[in-house]
Structures are given as C-alpha cells and as structure tokens.
C-alpha cells in the first residue's frame, strides 16, 4: 500500500475532532519511494520526497508569500537606537515597556524552537520551506528584542526582563497556555494535537503580539522610542506573513467540524490577552486604556476568525480603536507612512521585491 493512500485527503478532512487517525505521523526525511506529482501532493500526510522544486508547486500562494518573506529580510543592527531615551519615559511607561518586552522575547524564543516541530509534519516542500524562513525570522525577532533591551534599558533592569516570565503570575499562566499546547503535542503527537498547535500558532502570531505592538506605536506617536518602534514595525511586518501562512495551512486542513473548539480556544486566548493587557497597560498609559485594549483584542479576534471562515464571535467591536496607530505602521502596502529619510531604514526591502532584472 502506498503512503499516499494511507491518509487520503477526504478521510483526513472528515476526521471528527474526537477520533484520532492512528496513521498521523511525521513526514519521512529520505523518501525514494515518494512522489513529486502535484496531483498527489498534500499539505499533511502526503508522500513527498522533500525535493524543493519551485517551478512545480501545488500551493501557488506559497510562492508569492515566499517572495514577500524574502523581501522583508532585515537585521536589527541596521536601525539606530541612539535617540531612544528610556530615562525620559514616565515610570508607568517604563514598567509597561519592560513588561511587554519580557512577553515578546519569550514568545519569539519559543517560536524559534517550535516552528520546526510543525514543519516535521508538512509534506508539501514549498510550504515546509516557508516554515524554515519563519523559523529564521523568529530568531531575528528574539535577537531584536535583545538588541533593544541591551541598547536602551539600563543594565540593572535587563536580567529582570529575561526572567520575568517565571516570576509574573499572569505572564506565566498565559505562556503556559500556549507553550503547553506545543509541549502536549510533542509529548503525544496526535492529529488533533497538531491542529490545536496550528490554532495556537495562529493566535500567537495574529493576536498575542498586538497590544504590545500598539504600545510601541503609541510611544512613537508621542515622540518616544522611535528607533525601537521602527524595529517593532519590521517584526510586525514579518508576523503578518506568518499569520498569512498559518491562515492558509488552516484553511487547507480544517472543516466546519473544527469550528467549536477553535472558538473555545480563541475565547481563552482573548481572555488571557485582555487580562495581560489590563495587567501591563491598564489605565496608566496616555492613549491606551483597559477598555480600548479589550475592545481592540476582540476586534482583532473577529478579524482573525473571519479570515479562517468562522463568523465573528464578539459584538459591538467593528470599529478599531487603534486605527490611527495601525495606519501609521502601514502594514498593508498603502504607502501611508513616510519615513524621515535621514533617520529611517525601516521601510526598505531586499532587491528581489521587484522582478524584471532579466528583461534588460
């Protein structure tokens, strides 16, 4: 029996959440019996040789996404943090600033280690490749937070930021929720566990970072920490490609039968994000408050759900309270952020962002 018939697409997608497929397993690494035929190609449970042959891809979105991800290449050291003055922040802003960094650096560190675990099960080489790029970008992000911490935060506070995820109860709980899903799957690699990991990832990339990001944009809007904000903008740009990647993987593999538990997980993630935002931002920051954080998180959760074809679950949050901050971060190629050209290296791309070099 060939491997392709073991889990055929139909059977896979019809698997209800309760019944585990006993054949769900990692993709083979060296697989001379595998096939590169597009008709046989599957995202998960396929029989790939792992050969990356980009002129022969089934998932066309992957090729386009690859170009964007390449074009986004950057290193944090190219952005100057010379004018970022931690000492000029208010005490409350300092507290929020360091707290958010603790959270972000933990998440991106975990992601660097975790994304390859997902890639292990992917049997479409063009998608596996994107996960490899993502892994690399997560490492750049963890490096970036460290670069910000080491450049702008006084020495005596630095270790506290790295260690805070253990000591802060709310932070610990929410890290446990997401990382716990990842760990549970590693301990017991079931298909359902894998799908939970996909959602956990999607929520992490699409929901968890964002109150934190907005805080950086807010500071920049008030003239503070503009260098760090530029780096955050670059990270945000990458994260959006990761959201897109997982959105596609989820759309290819999920069915309506999955919606209920996805909604449950989303609600829990929203509750934790809101609790965290109330804890770390609260009502102490000019330009953000508890109410708007909660509103924004729910608004964002609806957006993420709609993207994977699930109806919105929160009402009365159509308006985005941080639209003015998001607009200035210009994540959607609209060209509505214009950098001062003596100061900004953030809005630049690798040269593969345009084609046509072979035409002349």
């Amino acid at each position, binding site marked *: 029996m060939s491997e392709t018939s073991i889990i055929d697409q139909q059977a896979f997608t019809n698997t209800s959440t309760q019944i585990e497929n006993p054949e769900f397993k990692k993709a083979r690494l060296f697989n001379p019996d595998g096939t590169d035929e597009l008709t046989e190609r599957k995202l998960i449970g396929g029989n790939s040789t792992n050969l990356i042959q980009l002129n022969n891809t089934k998932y066309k*979105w992957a090729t*386009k*996404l690859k*170009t*964007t991800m390449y*074009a*986004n290449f950057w290193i944090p050291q*190219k952005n*100057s943090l010379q*004018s970022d003055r931690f000492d000029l922040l208010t005490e409350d802003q300092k507290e929020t600033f360091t707290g958010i960094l603790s959270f972000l650096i933990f998440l991106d560190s975990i992601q660097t280690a975790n994304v390859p675990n997902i890639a292990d099960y992917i049997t479409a080489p063009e998608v596996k490749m994107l996960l490899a790029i993502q892994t690399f970008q997560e490492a750049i992000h963890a490096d970036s937070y460290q670069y910000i911490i080491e450049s702008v935060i006084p020495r005596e506070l630095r270790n506290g930021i790295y260690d805070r995820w253990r000591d802060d109860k709310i932070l610990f709980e929410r890290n446990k929720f997401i990382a716990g899903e990842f760990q549970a799957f590693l301990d017991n690699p079931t298909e359902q566990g894998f799908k939970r990991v996909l959602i956990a990832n999607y929520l992490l990339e699409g929901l968890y970072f964002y109150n934190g990001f907005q805080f950086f944009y807010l500071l*920049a*809007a*008030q*003239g503070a920490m*503009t260098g760090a*904000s*530029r780096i955050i903008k670059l990270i945000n*740009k*990458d994260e*959006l*490609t990761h*959201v*897109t990647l997982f959105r*596609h993987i989820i759309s290819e593999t999920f069915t309506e039968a999955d919606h209920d538990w996805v909604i449950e997980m989303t609600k829990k993630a929203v509750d934790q994000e809101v609790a965290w935002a109330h804890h770390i931002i609260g*009502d102490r920051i*000019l*330009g953000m*408050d508890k*109410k708007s954080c909660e509103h924004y998180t729910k608004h964002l959760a609806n957006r993420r759900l709609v993207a994977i074809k699930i109806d919105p679950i929160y009402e009365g949050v159509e308006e985005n309270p941080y639209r*003015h901050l998001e*607009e*200035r971060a*210009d*994540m*959607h*190629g*609209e*060209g*509505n*952020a*214009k*950098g*001062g*050209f*003596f*100061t*900004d*290296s953030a*809005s*630049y*791309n*690798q*040269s593969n*962002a*345009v*084609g*046509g*070099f072979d*035409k*002349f």
Partner: protein
Amino acid sequence: MLVQKRDGSTEQFDLAKIKQVIGWASQNLQVNPLQLESKISAIFNDGVKTEAIQENLTYAALSMTTAEEPHWSYVAGRLLMMKHWKETDETRQGQGFAKFVHSQVDAGLYAPHIIEHYSDEELNLAGRLLAPERDLDYDFAGADKLIKGYLVKNETPQIAYLMCALLINSQSKEKSLEFVQDLYDGLSLRRLSLATPFLRNLRRPEGNLSSCFIISMNDDLDSIFDNIKNFARISKEGGGCGVLLSNIRASGSWVRGRKDTSKGVIPIAKLFNDTATYVDQGGTRQGAVTLALDVWHADIHAFLEMQTEVGDQRAKAFDVFPQVVTPDYFWEVDGENGDWHLFDPYELRTVLDIDLVNCFGDEFVKNYKEAVKAYEQGKLQIVTVVKARELIKEIIKLHVESGLPYLFYKCTVNRLNPNKHTGIIPCGNLCVESYSNVLADEEAHTCNLISVNLANQPDFFALEISCRTAVRALDYAIDLTATPIRESNVHNNKYRTIGVGAMGLNDFLAARNTNYESGMDLINELFEEFAYACISESIKISEERGAFEAFQGSMWDTGERIEEYAKHASDPSRWESLQVAINKHGIRNSQIMAIAPNTSSSIIHGCVASILPVYSALFYDESNHRAVPIVPPYLHENPLGYKAYKHFSKYVMNDIVSTVQRWVDTGISYEMTFDLNNDQEDAFYRYQALRDAWKKGIKCIYYTRNVDLDSSCTACAN
C-alpha cells in the same frame, strides 16, 4: 473632583471650561466639537493636572484626524499652541518688544547683534508688526515641529519670524522697516520658508546659516584629514555636506611607489561615516553627508556595496548617503549595451597625465577613450571592464533595498554651469539641488536656502514679491555670519550662490482645481514667472551693490544663460531686455534658484513638500521627533487634487520635473517613489525611468522611496 493647576494650586473640575477650550480650538474649522468632548475619558482622576487634561485633549484630537476629517489636526495644533502660549509671556501681543529682546540677549538666548543694530525705539516700532493670531494657523505636525525644533526659549512663532526679518534687514543699507515688513509678512503668512539652519540659528549666538556645502579633497593624507575636519566643523554648525571622493586613488593602487598598497575610498568613507555620528550637535542631529564617486572609479563596486547587510562589516558605512556621478557617455555606452572601464585616478594621472574628474562632455569622452586605448596597449594595470548595464542593475537593486544612491548627471549639470569659465561642478550636495564650482582644498560650494510656498501665493503678483524678498534676504544673509570653513568664504565672495526653492506645487494646483497632468502649461508659466522675478531681483541688487566676483566671462556675462531661458519663454523679448540690464549692472548671484526637498519646513508650512505630488492623501510623518498625521491643506475642498505620488507614471514625473528644471538654474531634489505592490513598476521600468530622466535633461535623482509590499494580503488572491 479637583484639578491641579500649573502653579500647583487646585480648583474644582469644571467641564464648562474644557468645553470652552474645545470650542475655541474648533472655531472656523470643519469639525464637530462634540466628537472631541466624547473622548474625554477616564483619564480625569481626582487631582489630575491641567497639563495632563490639555495633553489628553490634544492627543485625542490628533488621533481623530482622517482623510475625511483632516481639520482635527488643526484643532490639535491650536491646543498645542495654546499650551505654548501659556509657557511664553505676553510679548506676543506686541507690547514691550525691546524689553523682551534685551532680556533674551541678557540671558544669552539671542546674539547681541540685534541690540547693537537697532535702537529700543526701532524695536518697539517693529513689535507693532506682530500678528499673534497667525500662530493659530498651524496643524499639529507644524506646531509641534516648530516649537520643538526651532523656537528659542520664551519665543512664539511670530516673535521668531520678526526677529529673523530684523536680523536679515540689518544688512540693508537703509534703516527703513519696509523690507522688514515684507519679510516678516512673507514668513508669518507662510509664503516664505527659511531653511532649517537659518530659522534655527539666525537669532542664536554663533549660528551658521548655510544649509549646503560641497567639499573636495586631493589624493594626499593632509587633504583627506583636513577635509574630515572641515566636515566636522560643517556638521557642528548643522550644515549638510557633499564630499567628492573621486580624486582618491583606488584600492590596490600605489603608495610611495609600492603597488597593492592603497586601501581605496572605502576606509575614507568610514571615517566620514564615524565623523557624522560623532558630531551630532549635542545629540540633536547627526551629521549628514553624501559621498560622491564617479562611475568610472575602480572602487565603484565596493562603494555600491558599502550599505548592504551582507559581507564584511568593516567595509560598511551605514550613516552616509552615497552618490554616483555619471557622465553622458556612460549612458550612451549603456544604450549600446557596451563595456565600461573602471580606472584608478592615480594611475591615470601618473602614467597618462589624464584627469577624468575635472572635465565633462566631449572633453571627458576624449580623455576616457585615450585611457581605454592606453589600457588596450597594455599601459595600465588597474582597470576593470564591466557592462555599463550591470552597474545600473546594481544601482537599481540598491534603490529597492535602501533608496540610495543618488544619481548625478554630470554633463547636464555642467553644460548649464554659468561658471564654466572658472571651473567644474564635480558632484551634488546632500539634497542634490544646490551645487556650483568646487576646487579641492580651495573653494567649497556654500549655499543658503529659502523656499517660496506656492500653496499660500494668492496670485502671480504675490509670487513676484515673495521671490524678490527671498533673493534679497538670501543675498543679505551671505554677509551676515562667518562660515564654518575658510574654503566657504573664498567661494562666497567669488560666486555668491543662493537657492530660492519652491514647495506646495501640488497645493497650488489643487487650489486652482487642476492637477499635474492637465496643469502642465500652468506649471510652465508659474516657473517662468518664478525665475523671472528671482533673476530680476538679483540684477537689482547688483545695481545697488555690484556683481559676483567671477561674473566676467560667465554665462550671464556672455548672454548664453539668458538665451537658454529665451528659447522656452512665452515672451522672449522680455528676457532679452533682462540681458540688457545684466550687461549694464551685472548680476549679484551666480546661481539663484534651487528646489530643496523641504521635508521639515513643508510640515511647518502645512503644505506638500517640494514640487512633487503628495506622498499619500494622509500619511504619518515618522521623522525622529514624532509620528504624526499629515494632511494636505486643500484636501477638504478638492480631494481629487491629491493623487498619491505612487500612482503617477514615472515618465509623467520626468516631464514635470524637466519642465520645472528649464527655469531653475541650479537643481531640484527629485525624489522618485515606486510602488512595490505594482507589478508594472519592475526593475526594467525603473531602468527606463532613469534613462528617460537623463534624456529629458533632469540633473539629478535624489532619493528613491518604495511603497512597501503588503505583508498581510500577498496571498489573498488565492
């Protein structure tokens, strides 16, 4: 609930007071004050400070700014100005101006020149010109930038403008306040905009006024390090600097007779890089320098790779702005997809006695071909042969990655150089709009800038007054302060170069219900008037005070410069009579007009920068101080008049810029904006746009902006 006032006392919270403030700030603007009131949030705890309330309101108004409701940014601007007024004294009303000036001088905030030149009586008389209500015409971005970046302690904007007008007028031979009135009105009605060093430094002790410098060095150690010092001094005074590196021997060249010893231009670039980061005006503004290298220089590849992320970090210089100098012949060779030769200037000098730096046009072609011949005969060792097109591809890749290097079309610039009789223009300044003859170690290009804000010119008559006032102010300014380096003084006396710029062209068109495409004739007419007024005034000053030193034999003197204008003029006879006047009186300034980017000053003026289309109908300015929404002034009246730059064909842009360039005797900071999301605008398109620019007689390409790829939606098509 209690609130704490500025002086520390407390009073009962009074919502009516806040409503009153909001009403005042919203007066005559297209906004609904209730909307702002609804934002008054939980921030008002017991004991809240009045400043916090004010700040909260300002910020709330700012966050409400949209393309549909742009006036909120003016509400925020007024609220900010109100706060600033509270922090300054009552002098803004015009009372006791002399007393105020004295106290500023005593406190060391103003240079004493002002009270040495004007009596108290004269100062108090001038004080009556103050029109404080004009302080309220700023949007938030403008008010913020002005207050934070330009005003001296205790000043309001109007006081700053009046002070500038008085100081510039101190060079006038007559004591009358007529010119002060013209200049003050021009500045305060925002028809004229002083360049940054001008507006920032003029009133302060030891301030430099010049914006633009170009220095050049010879191929020896003394010259190299002397010029690093020169650059440091220029940076200290806030000037932007261009530096020509092309004379420097290439990597692998000889030092003291030993081959493979020279390290080439990159280590020098790094020295300038580090000097720029070190000399940063007390942390406020990093030194800014464009390093220029000719495209035939053997180090051109290393030079182009100077800012990429990959490769040896020791060969990187991230904080400079590279500029590539290209002769016509380079583009001609590329037209045939031909080979291009890279040479070591030291070897050319010593072996062949050829200098490729100080020539252009036919003379360059002759020298270059001679060098190629010598190479083919085996006489030269340090030569690389590449396809011209491969170099252009490298440049385009860098444009996508970092928006640099600038391109300088050397032959176009020099063909129209009025001072061909005394030298050559080797490269452009930091914003590639202002340049003149430069001689290594002897003469440094030096220039002051004022821009005419076209958005606020009611008619051509007002435009003429603005242009004339600008020329006169700039010419006076040359004599007003000492320059940071000796080479500048020599140059100033010899050429007296000034740069009258223009900004708000997009607004000028939008206000007249037209646009770039259908307004081409109007643009042409506008800039003919602009040039005519500027040149006329320079002749008039020459009549009063004499021509620039090198006038004799210049294109102004021979009549060639005016001939060039007459070719395109609506009424050539008008220009011919200008030549008659020049023959009689000479002309005061060898270069007169230069269109600067005006990135900061256009924000203060609330107009679209330079002569280019708006970046986007609403965008967020991200320069160092703040990220704030920017909305063009006539957006509410004519939303269709503001098509975003990225939607323009670059061929059309080249047409617009070359039309304006006909009338502008120096250069234009021509920024190109490409949209990475538009598949049409690929590398080949960029290549064609650069060639098209060269063919149309554009002098330089400044900075290339790229509208980012859409990160979230790339795969939506699926």
